[in-house]
């Protein structure tokens, strides 16, 4: 554990900084997405006076609140991952990569259905490429060089 901190402080690759900045950009985008449905439903002016559900179905207000909640959760997870990432945790790299992959897949599907979000797509692409840098994979212990079989001493 101690060694990881040492690596982080001494040899912080530029790619890690880029990824951290990318996460921050996405965090800000997600925060906008948290407040957008609530602003659209005038929740900050009128409060949550109206019902959120009608039987088993969500009302428009309920759907907006749920959407915001999901985005809020996503933002919070993003912040936890960012902290893990800054502390050079392997799990943070894996979660971030899986998250970025899913996000890219959704972004590409959205693009092909004429609903592109180029900023998110670009941020995700940058994060994916930065995370895949050999140096970054090494410090997160994702890449372990195989032992050279031929170097073994003979009998």
């Amino acid at each position, binding site marked *: 554990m101690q060694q990881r901190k040492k690596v982080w402080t001494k040899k912080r690759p530029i790619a890690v900084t880029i990824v951290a900045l990318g996460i921050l950009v996405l965090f800000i985008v997600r925060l906008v997405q948290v407040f957008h449905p609530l602003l659209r439903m005038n929740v900050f002016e009128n409060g949550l006076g109206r019902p959120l559900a009608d039987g088993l179905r969500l009302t428009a207000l309920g759907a907006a609140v749920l959407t915001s909640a999901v985005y809020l959760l996503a933002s919070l997870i993003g912040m936890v991952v960012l902290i893990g990432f800054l502390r050079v945790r392997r799990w943070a790299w*894996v979660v971030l*990569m*899986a998250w*970025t*992959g899913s996000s*890219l*897949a959704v*972004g*590409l*599907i959205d*693009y*092909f*259905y004429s609903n592109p979000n*180029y900023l998110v*797509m*670009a941020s*995700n*692409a940058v994060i*994916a*490429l930065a*995370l*895949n*840098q*050999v140096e*970054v*994979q090494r410090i997160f212990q*994702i*890449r372990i060089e195989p032992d050279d*079989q*031929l170097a*073994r*001493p*003979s*009998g």
Partner: protein
Amino acid sequence: MTNSPDRPADSRDRPIAAAAPDMELLRHYEPVIRFTQGEQFFPMDVVRYVQDCSLWAHYPNGRDELLVGQDDLTIDTLVETRPAAFGTVHYLRFIENLSLTESADMLTRQLRLRGRLRNSFHPGLGRLARGGLLPRVVDALFSLSFLLRGRVPAASAAAAELDYFHMRAKRESFTYYGRVVRQNHWTVLQYWFFYCYNNWRSGFGGVNDHESDWETISVHLYETDGQLVPEWVAYASHDYHGDDLRRRWDDTGQVDLEDGHPVVYAGAGSHASYFRKGEYQAEVDLNLPAWLESAGRIWNTFWTQMLGQQPADPFHIPFVDYARGDGLAIGPGHSRNWSPILIDEGVSWVSRYRGLWGLFARDPISGENAPGGPMYNRDGTPRNAWYDPLGFAGLDKVPPPPEVLRLLENNCADLTDRQARLNTVIPEKAGELQSLGIRLRSMEGNPHLAKQHTAMQRRMNALAEEVRGYRREYSENAATLESLNSRLERQRRGVRDNARTHIRHLAMPSRTTRRRFDRVGEAWAAISLSLLLFAIVGLLFLARRYLGAGLAVITILFVVIESILRRAFVQTVSELTALLAIIACAILVIHFWYWLIVGALVSVALFLLLQRLRELTG
């Protein structure tokens, strides 16, 4: 490892008198072959095989003609000269065409026989579970290719197994054909093994089946004090060539010996020879077009160096060669021993029969066609292993240990002489060059000497080039001499090279122990491809509007499940994300190329401006 250059023979070597007869030499180092449980075919005598065959000719117009029937074929009739047009293929046929009822009968009798003998094969971790989804797709295409390619009929293996069983029941003998070759101070003992059938595909899920099979191994000995001592042993195997085929006799980590006899672990059905027991992942060479291979190399460079991924090998079809060594063992110290037969070019069937030793299945990539004999390839050209046994094992450039010291000393002496000569020549030429230089300087400022000046300039340039060449040679020779002397000194002290430095690709058995999820992984491997196709059909029927997105989601889902079962989740997620990022980048470039160019120009302009301003301000 320390030893004298021509190391003293230890108990593993069991040296033998160099004057011993060839048969005695062969018997002294004959191998022990350990087969896998479930193997049905063992090395046999070609005379008995030929008596059970018919001889055929396949003509370029596609017609096949029976030349000699089964009752009349003997070794003598086989080797008769038969003039034929270019493109004609002569071949033996061990199993005649079987009708549907005969095929069913053969398969039933095969099952009954195996049950009675209790010699069945258990595959362990299934081959399909050893590769990813993409190799499985390529594997499916490979299986489908048999619909278009020629192949050995399905019941042939069963019929061959029954025929061979009856031959063994009549008289059991296990034959190898031995040959002794003396080349470049080496004595090569070649052992050839003939099997009447290769049932790797039908019996063990391998690449191919074919009638008859020739395999070879060789032991390479050198002479010291009138004794022959083994130094190398080479086994022919799939996918390996030259240096990769041989191991040093004293490499205990690679060469198993039983009382001084090398142990060969034979692949089940394929009969390929391995040094270590285990299960080997075989690769199939798909013979891709050159442009596709170049594109693959470029992609791999980009994929590994720019994106930090592991090299991709999508065309690695997971065929397994099982060389477990848990079945029958033949050789010294075992209940089944060899019946050796000495061969050379003088043996008629070796040199005079250039046809195939089994069915010509008309397979254009030859995998299902029977092989040629020990001396010839399938097309009748001489076989490398026969005419150049040293080159076959990459030993053509390797002197035997007693020669090493002499050759090193000769090399050192030659180079030392050359250096001494250069030591005299270089100062002479350098002096001449200086003299020319001073003469040339004296001519300057004299217009009437212009012609002579130009000629002398040319002469001086040539001489300067010559001196440079000598100096370069001297410098290179010095480095070579240093390495030669260092090696010579090591040899004199008895330090030997690492036994494996010559190996570029070391055949290593894959893991055989089961791990968590292996059963599920195998089941998934068996059904995943069909399931994927069913899912696509379902998508076509139920949600055609979302076909693109659906296909993407289904594929990603399958790949992720696959990666979890193969314990490669992290690598797969990394690869998938990198691939999606490339697609996203391509889309961004297509949409924003104008702004990207503008951005790049602005960046370059700013960079140059800053550089120049820094220079200006000192």
